[in-house]
Each structure stands twice: as C-alpha cells, then as structure tokens.
C-alpha cells in the first residue's frame, strides 16, 4: 500500500491498520482496502485499486474500430454485452450508420438477458458475503441457463463479442426465441422463490437495513450511476431518459429505492432495486422477442471503418449503471482517444467517505451492495 496513504494516518492512538484484500473472497476480485479501525468500528477504509489495470484505453488507440470490440468484453466480464453495445453505438454515431431494427431488438434482448445474469451474480454473492451461502447456488443455477442461451446466440459464455459496428454478429438461431421464452416463464417463479428464500429473511433485513446509507444528494454528487443511484431514490435510467436503440419501443418500469428496510439509500435498497430490475428485464426480453422484426441484422458498413474527425459520447445503461464511451476520431482507422467511463470506478470513490463509523462486518455489505467489479474499476 502506498506510502502516501500511510503518511495520512495518525499512529498515536489505539487504532489498528488492517489490510482487507487484495486476496479476499468478499472483495469480488483483487481489491485492497486499508482499513483503519478502532476495535470493531472503522474510522475509514481506503480503497487501493489497479491490480487489474490493463490500460484498455491505450489499447483502444492502437487497434482499429472493429478490432477493439473483443477488448471491450474485458471492461466488465460480468456484463460484457453492454460494453459491446456502448462501443458499437459510439462508433455508429461517428460513422452515422443506421442500425437495422432486427439488430436493435436482438441487442436489447441479449443485453437484458445479460443484465439478469449480472444481477444474479451480484445479489447471490451479496447474500454469501452477508453469511447466507445457499442463495448463491440458486442464482448461479439460473445464470447457467442464461449462459446457455447466450452461448446458443453468440458462441461464448463470458466474453461475448456479439455486437458489431452496425448490428450484431449473428442472427438468432432457429428455436432460440422459444427457448428464451420458456426460460423466462420459469424465471418468474424463481424471483418469487428468491424473495421467500432470502429477501425478506429477518436476519438479512437487519444486516442490511439502515446500513451504509447514501443520501440522494451524496449519490448524485459522487457520480454514482445505475442501481446504486436508483437505490438512493433518484429516478433516473438511461434506457428511459436518454433512450437509445430499441428501448423507446418497450414498456418497463424503473424501480427506485423506497426505504423498504428502513432508510432510503441503505444497502438493502440497492440490493432490492436489483431484484426488481431483473423482473423488468424479463419484461423487456419478452417484448423484444415477441415483436422481433424481420429483416437484416447487420447494416451495410464499409470494410475499412474510417469515421470523419469528431468526438462523441455514447451512453448505455449497463448492469452497473451508465457506461459511457468518449471517443475522439481524427479521421484515421484508429481512434485518437478512447475513454470508458464506468460505474464501478466512481462507486469505489464513495467508499472512503461512507465507511467512516461502520462496523468492519458492514464494509462487506457496503462493497457488495455497490456491486463493484474489479476489472471495471481498473480497466
């Protein structure tokens, strides 16, 4: 850990310094926290990230526009579809390419399936971190089913590389639609099962209710996005408010934290917003597949992608909130600058201030409820 941090810490009292991570099961990847504690109560937890830094932004300047697509998978390995989609939308806006309707619907369906899978990991591991080990198994069971569906669609289970500049790589295979609809019917009952299993469990409620409260003002000020922002009661969703792709065609609600376990913006609100979002995602997938238009799934895109000079910001609502690509083109085959603004990076920024006064055990709840994923913070 850095000397600069150690210098900031006052050593003349009873406080203890504990390294939490980088190899710790409940940090979900390699993160390190330098925890300054007085007994069981933390004074603060200072996050130290960068273990997975691969300079993906620099790589973006070195490979061509279509060649960067597989790298975007690595930005967030639990929700790679969104990183694909954001990159595709950014380049399409630079090229001024119109994406066919069928491709947009397939994008929406694949992304929402991925959102369910990502949220399942998030809430499953959260329950494990809190101490309930069983729910993770139920969550992973359903995630496997989604992985199978996505594998049938694009051949990969984790790093999908499915979207393309101008459309998607493959059309939906024969019978895929029915398979997905059958899965969704089953999944609806899982959500009820899930609520019975863990959500309204009394111990779970007590562990999460009123813990690590992030107020509405704080959430906006610290730049939280996605379920973390909505958990704090801000009614904002990029899919609805700055719509892109096929989302204007779909009906869905945006769940917002209501203080189900006591306080608006506590760890339980961030958790339960994710559970409710999964139900909305199933609605979107159903609508996308029922209304799936015929036609091309790929626009006519020149073989050599050379957008004219300009800069663009594309936003998509990823599973971890707004994922924005800021791309500058200088008229050549490679981007001049690629920037991926991810939700987890900013979520890490709030931990130091929120953690003061929490119990050590609640730090785990805070990290899990913010759903930070190490490759997305580090890139």
């Amino acid at each position, binding site marked *: 850990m*850095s*000397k*600069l*941090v150690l210098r*900031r810490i006052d050593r003349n009292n009873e406080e203890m310094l504990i390294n939490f991570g980088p190899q710790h099961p409940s940090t979900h990847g390699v993160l390190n926290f330098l925890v300054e504690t007085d007994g069981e109560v933390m004074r603060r937890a200072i996050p130290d*990230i*960068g273990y997975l*830094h691969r*300079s993906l*932004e*620099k790589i973006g300047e070195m490979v061509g526009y279509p060649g960067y697509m597989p790298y975007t998978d690595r930005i967030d390995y639990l929700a790679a579809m969104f990183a694909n989609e954001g990159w595709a939308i950014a380049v399409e*806006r*630079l090229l001024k390419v119109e994406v066919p309707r069928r491709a947009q619907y397939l994008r929406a369906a694949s992304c929402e399936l991925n959102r369910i899978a990502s949220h399942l990991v998030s809430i499953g591991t959260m329950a494990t971190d809190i101490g309930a080990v069983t729910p993770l198994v139920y969550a992973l069971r359903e995630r496997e089913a989604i992985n199978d569906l996505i594998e049938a669609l694009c051949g990969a289970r984790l790093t999908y590389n499915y979207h393309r500049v101008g459309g998607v790589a493959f059309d939906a295979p024969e019978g895929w639609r029915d398979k997905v609809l059958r899965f969704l019917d089953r999944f609806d009952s899982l959500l009820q099962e899930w609520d019975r299993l863990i959500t309204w469990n009394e111990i779970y409620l007590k562990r999460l209710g009123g813990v690590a409260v992030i107020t509405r003002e*704080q959430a*906006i*000020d*610290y*730049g939280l996005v996605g379920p973390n922002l909505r958990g704090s009661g*801000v009614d*904002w969703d990029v899919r609805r*408010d*700055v719509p892109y792709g096929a989302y204007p065609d779909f009906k869905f609600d945006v769940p917002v934290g209501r203080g189900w376990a006591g306080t608006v913006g506590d760890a339980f609100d961030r958790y339960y917003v994710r559970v409710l979002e999964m139900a909305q995602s199933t609605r979107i997938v159903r609508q996308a597949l029922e209304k799936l238009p015929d036609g091309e799934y790929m626009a006519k895109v020149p073989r050599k992608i050379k957008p*004219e*000079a*300009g*800069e*663009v*910001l594309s936003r998509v609502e990823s599973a971890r909130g*707004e994922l*924005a690509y*800021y791309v*500058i083109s200088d008229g050549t085959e490679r981007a*001049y*600058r690629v*920037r991926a*603004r991810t939700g987890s*990076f*900013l979520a*890490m*920024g*709030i931990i130091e*201030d929120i953690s003061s006064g929490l119990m050590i055990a609640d730090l785990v709840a805070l990290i899990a409820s913010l759903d930070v994923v190490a490759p997305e913070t*580090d*890139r």
Partner: protein
Amino acid sequence: MTTSEIHQRLQAQFGEAVGPLSEPKVDPFAFVKPDRLVEVCRFLKDTPGLEIDFCEDLTAVDWPKRDAIEVVYHLYSYKYRHGIVLKVEASRAAPTVPSVEGVWKAANWMEREVYDLFGVTFSGHPDLRRVMLPDDWVGHPLRKDYQEAGGFHGIPNLRENPLVELRRLDEVRMAEHAKANPPPPPPAAPAPSAAGAPPSPAAPPAAPKA
C-alpha cells in the same frame, strides 16, 4: 435548455473566459480559461435553471502536435436533462488545472485518474495521488509519447515469443529423429508379390467360435 442556450448564459456571465461553441460535428464543446474554470463550474451547478449536478465524465486528451493537454468535462443535469461539454487546455510540459473537486465530489477520483495516466496536476485537490499505477511508476501511459520502461522492479514486461522456443525444440527433435532413422536406401525395382495382390493392412478378426 439546449447546449447552445447554456453556452450563451455562460458567455453572458463570463465573457471572454468561455470560448465559442465548437462546430457540432457530433458533440459540441466549449473551451474555458483555466483560471475561471472553478467559477464557471460553480455557476453551472448553483444557478437556478441550470443546476448541473452530475459530473458525468472527466478525462483528458493529449495533443503533442499542438503541445497541449485538454481536460474534458462532461456535465449533465438530472433535473433539467441538459448538459454541456467543457474543455480546459494546459501545456504539456507542466500541466496544471484547478480542481473541481469542491464542486462535484465525483471529480475526486476522476482527477486522480487523469493525474495518474496523463500527469496533469490539479491544484487544490485534497488527495492527489496515483490511483491505477503504483506510486513509484515512471511516466504517464496515456500520453502519446509514452515509452514502456521495459519492466518494473525487476519484473520484465517483455517475454520471448513462445513460438521461437517451440520451433527450436521442434528442430532439435527432427534432427534427433533423422539421426536415429537414417533415410532408407533408394528403392530397388519392386519385387512381384507372392499372391499378386497388395497385402491387406490387417487381417479381419476371426469370427468367434460357437
């Protein structure tokens, strides 16, 4: 409010300190003089009717040809659903830009990231230290002229192409094989086989006896 309306209000308030809106090729932006940046940001955040409360993105771009580093601010308002892109220019040799951490807390980590990867110093930042890379890392990787140092504390970042070694092993094996099995003498004239037919490669298995 549209971006150009926000920009007009900024120019009415700050005059020359806010440059003209760029030609909207895709997304327009405006340059701001560095010494007025914090004032401009406070104005954007606190003025009723603007209330830009979300610092959506803060990053930098290196332009060695112009000898400048641009720091780019993407700002957005949740309430009114409008936004503007501001840019600040600094020299490449010793880039210093005032910190907007006091306006939006989100800028804290994003400024640290820019400091880490571009070497821009943000004056007034409370905790300016590297975020991605180790503290003793040399250089700022996202600058266009960054050269890899070739290792870090004795850990090399280069490795040999594994195919070279595999190919060497392959050649060694082939040489050994050739040594152990010298090439057969040139074939003589083919002798007529006894049966007059080519020998079958394998005899069919005998049928099990009942």
